[in-house]
């Protein structure tokens, strides 16, 4: 009987010891991570200088309508009459007909300002994030059009599906209080 009690006590001790070790372990891991942690959430964003406008943003987002949309920084824009983002590389005519536009959803609006400058605005509700305008604007123009994750739409998955599929590895985590990486004038 005494032996069995000893057995039981020994087992009890072992178990308690293990329990204490586990608690310490969990506490240790959490503590270590906590001292490094920050209050703000991370969100996903595209680095426009790495992006190659491959078109994956429109198809890989888990949402039906991609959270990635094209943004326009007018300070960089050249306001060209022949906008390389607006018109196809070889437009039939310089009109706003569908056959001349690069954008498949007609999301870029063109407005005459003064000769020879035109203003180009993106209608976010129509943009699907395909990046066709970004590609041509970067190749032939100033690169003032670029793709960005829109954070009023993004669900902020722990693993962004587009990030995993981006061939240029242009996705990065940014703090939620400064969630956009906008292009600046004269980036060298």
């Amino acid at each position, binding site marked *: 009987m005494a032996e069995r009690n000893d057995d039981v006590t020994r087992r009890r001790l072992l178990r308690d010891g293990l329990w204490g070790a586990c608690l310490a372990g969990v506490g240790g891991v959490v503590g270590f991570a906590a001292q490094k942690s920050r209050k703000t959430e991370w969100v996903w964003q595209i680095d426009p200088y790495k992006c190659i406008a491959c078109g994956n943003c429109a198809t890989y987002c*888990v949402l039906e309508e991609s959270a990635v949309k094209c943004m326009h920084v007018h*300070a960089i824009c050249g*306001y060209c009459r022949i906008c390389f983002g607006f018109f196809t590389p070889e437009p039939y005519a310089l009109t706003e007909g569908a056959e001349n536009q690069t954008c498949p959803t007609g999301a870029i609006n063109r407005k005459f300002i003064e000769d020879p400058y035109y203003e180009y605005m993106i209608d976010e509700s129509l943009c699907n994030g395909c990046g066709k305008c970004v590609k041509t604007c970067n190749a032939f123009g100033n690169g003032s059009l670029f793709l960005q994750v829109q954070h009023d739409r993004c669900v902020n998955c722990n*693993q962004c599906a587009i990030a995993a599929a981006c061939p240029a590895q242009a996705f990065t985590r940014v703090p939620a209080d400064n969630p956009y990486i906008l292009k600046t004038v004269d980036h060298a």
Partner: protein
Amino acid sequence: MIRRGHIFIGLLAVLVLSVAAHGLERFPPPEFETDYVRPTTVTPHPRQDVWEYIDTGVFVAALGLATYLVLRRRSRKGIFLLMLFSLVYFGFFRKGCICSIGAIQNVALTAFDPTYAIPITALIFFGLPLVFTLFFGRAFCGAVCPLGAIQDAVLISPVKVPRWLESVLRILAYLYLGAGVLFAATGCMFIICRYDPFVGFFRLGANWNLLVFGACLLLIGLFVGRPYCRFLCPYGVILRQLSRLSKWRVTITPTECIQCRLCEDACPFGAILKPTEQWPAKEYKIAKLRLAFLLVLLPVLIGAGGWAGYQLRGWLAQAHPQVRLAQRVYLEQNGQVEGTTDASDAFRATGRPSTELYAEASAIRDRFKVGGALFGAFIGLVIGGKLLGLSVKRRRTDYEADPASCLACGRCYSYCPKEHERLKLKKETVVAHG
């Protein structure tokens, strides 16, 4: 001859090629004569910080309430309702992200990536259920986890899974855990999130393959109780070990077990252990030998696993996009493959020398030497531990809920006659007082 007027346009189109051609304006931004003002770029904001606090608060409250309902109240109805609430709130409302299972990866990344710091919410989602489980058992699984909730919700007609099948299938969960931590720590990808089968339902949209996988799991879940929880969940296997050591645990009977056997088929998850019986003497001898053999085998398995993991470092490293890119660029450079991919085009556009890429990729691959070895050793330990656990005879006189497997769903309570006694007593007390 080119007319002068056209030269103007030609000049307008001259592209000044410089090394940093990517960002330098080719067409100088104009200065307007009219009083036109450039529009500013609208940058919509992410959801408020306040939701983080609400989420954390609800989470803590749910954990506390679940524990209370499981251990104190012992109310299946209560657990079920809380489970439904978790399903709706953490599942469909919060779209299943962030969850405790995925948070493992965030912790792994924090430990090994100096540029990443885990947000407090993720840390709480990771750590709190572990602490609760150490004290109270797997109440988290029972009523708080949305993935468990969706599986439990569809369970209509449970079928028993034979023990041997359970044992071997659970190895998958350990593999998932090891791989999840390894790939998260090395910065490849969060595979647990990527292949989460139920998040597609919570979001009402996902990759087709993932939706099919999730649907299959749920269809299986109609008959097999909580298949993901029992055989795939990487967080669950951590909870298993912690729950074994918990101070308080789920008991089928509120007071004492009378071995009436009415609860034998109560658990849809096979977590009820029967009282053990004496073995014939021969069995003990064999069992002792077997135990000794397995004890010696354990370090061998760990070593073999570590070695295997080390050998597989080349394959494991393929999970990292830089490694795949380096291989692709190398093949293209040496004419061993035709054409280019978007990724290799993007790399060449950066103008970096490929030797730099190879060096980076090699460094990443080197991390898999240790990572792979640890992963392999871990699996070796798991399998060795399993075999050992299956060779040890435990003494049990009562019907108990297996502390490791019990998911704290509360279904077994109503099968116990002692429970009914307690309820009747409670009702009588209420009537007497009222």
